[in-house]
């Protein structure tokens, strides 16, 4: 399984143009948003810090969704997945390797945002808090990687791209990564709390300012992870020859 995970990672690292846009997007958003509006506080944190956490969450989500879903749809279409299925690789090994790949794809995008925030906008944190954020990105990428596996298996080619775009934007907007949730209309406001994107950022803010992590947030992330992993697993089992 390790060989497979290494193989997958090496392949995705080689696609430099893809990675450039994948990782540049949250960084560009950060630089743009950090210059907009007034100084002051946002979501209980100084504005550059709150934005940094939001964009780290965005980078985590986007890298995992885009890095896993559409390439999988493509590999199903060209039947590489069919070949993989007749080799000694179990569904769980495949799933674990893909989730690890998603985590390793998510980290650099998050680090780039953090470096820009620290170097350009005076964001500081204790080594413990930085380490905590790194752990959060790694673990927090799992539900998004699993969602990517669902999209990549359920949809073909072009549809998987559009669905990933739709998911990323919806989760980012409704989850309060691009606009504060307080600005969203009432019903959507409530929906936000049920989204993994919102809870990933909320947990990130708690890690950064050292306040206690909300158990509800962890529970929401865990439920999304479990649901996405189960659906991805069922699709893998069911797909068979359609591969």
């Amino acid at each position, binding site marked *: 399984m390790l*060989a*497979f995970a290494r*193989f997958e990672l*090496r*392949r*995705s690292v*080689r*696609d430099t143009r893809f990675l450039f846009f994948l990782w540049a997007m949250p960084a560009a958003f950060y630089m743009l948003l950090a210059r907009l509006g007034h100084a002051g506080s946002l979501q209980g944190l100084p504005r550059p810090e709150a934005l940094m956490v939001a964009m780290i969450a965005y980078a985590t989500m986007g890298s995992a969704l885009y890095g896993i879903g559409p*390439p999988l749809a*493509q*590999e199903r*279409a*060209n*039947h*590489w997945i*069919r*070949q993989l*299925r*007749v*080799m*000694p*690789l*179990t569904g769980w090994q495949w799933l674990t390797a893909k989730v690890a790949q998603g985590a390793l794809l998510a980290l650099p995008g998050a680090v780039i945002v953090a470096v820009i925030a620290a170097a350009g906008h005076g964001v500081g944190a204790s080594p413990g808090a930085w380490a905590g954020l790194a752990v959060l990105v790694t673990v927090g990428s799992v539900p998004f990687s699993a969602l990517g596996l669902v999209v990549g298996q359920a949809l073909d080619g072009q549809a998987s791209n559009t669905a990933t775009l739709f998911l990323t934007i919806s989760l980012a907007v409704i989850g309060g990564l691009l606009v504060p949730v307080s600005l969203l209309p009432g019903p959507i406001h409530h929906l936000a709390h049920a989204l993994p994107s919102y809870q990933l950022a909320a947990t990130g803010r708690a890690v950064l300012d050292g306040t206690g992590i909300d158990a509800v947030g962890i529970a929401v992330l865990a439920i999304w992870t479990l649901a996405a992993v189960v659906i991805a697993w069922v699709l893998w089992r069911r797909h*068979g*020859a359609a*591969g």
Partner: protein
Amino acid sequence: MTPAVVFSKVSRSYGDITALDGVSFEVAVGEMVALLGPNGAGKSTTVDLMLGLRQPSAGQVKVLGCPPAHAASEGRVGAMLQDGGLPANATVGEVVDLARRLYPTSRPLAEVMVLAGLTGLEARRVDRLSGGQAQRVRLAVALAGDPKVLFLDEPTVGFDVEARRSVWAAVRGAAAQGVTVVFTTHQLEEVDANAARVLVLAAGRLVADGTTAQIKSRLSERVVTATLATVCPEQLAALPGVVDVDASGVRVRLRTQDADATVSALYRSEMGPAALNISGASLEDALIALTHVDDAVARLVEPG
């Protein structure tokens, strides 16, 4: 000894369409078997069932005594899929090495590269290969894990004569080491040269199972070829015994169930035959008869 492949009364349908209908056969360990039939006969379904990529609607499939997916997950099966793709952004060496590492036992990388004729291409990206080279990579992936059973679905599509020869040399090399090989192909000379045994599918049923010689001899038809002064296809088709006419040039080819009657009627006709030759049916003729003519199928399905 446990057979390499067992199909017992296997059926598979997709909605209303029956792709396989009560197919039974066994392949012994070490055999080299060709699976033939026209497109739509059920070959792909048979291959998918052997690989555990699909489940039978009825009946049972076993590979080396266990369910096919189980045999595959244990690394005892190598497969070269007809439409098998290769992953983007990987080199030839990486793909072949991945296959080696996934299997519990494997051949040395250098040996696989030589077997599949890929030496010197290790660092080449698989998305930048010619069709024939990509096909060799797929063969290498199938051979890399040193499997006990090899399934090759049209392994030489897109190959030139030289490449075809080297692939079969590789496959025969594996077979000589005791590997069971089941393959499909449309190249009948490959069957004659490589398969000790042939399974013929038509419309989802197994219509013949035997050596190539047996299959040819079970066809009582003969082929009459002659050069004609004047070619009249209608008249040729009306000759006694004739079941098929190929009159695309002055050299005509007639498949007949009664060569004597056909030839004497041909000489009595106005068509002026010369350089006449009577031969046994080729494997291709046998297959056409087996898979296309309903009464011939009925006749040849009889155990014999």
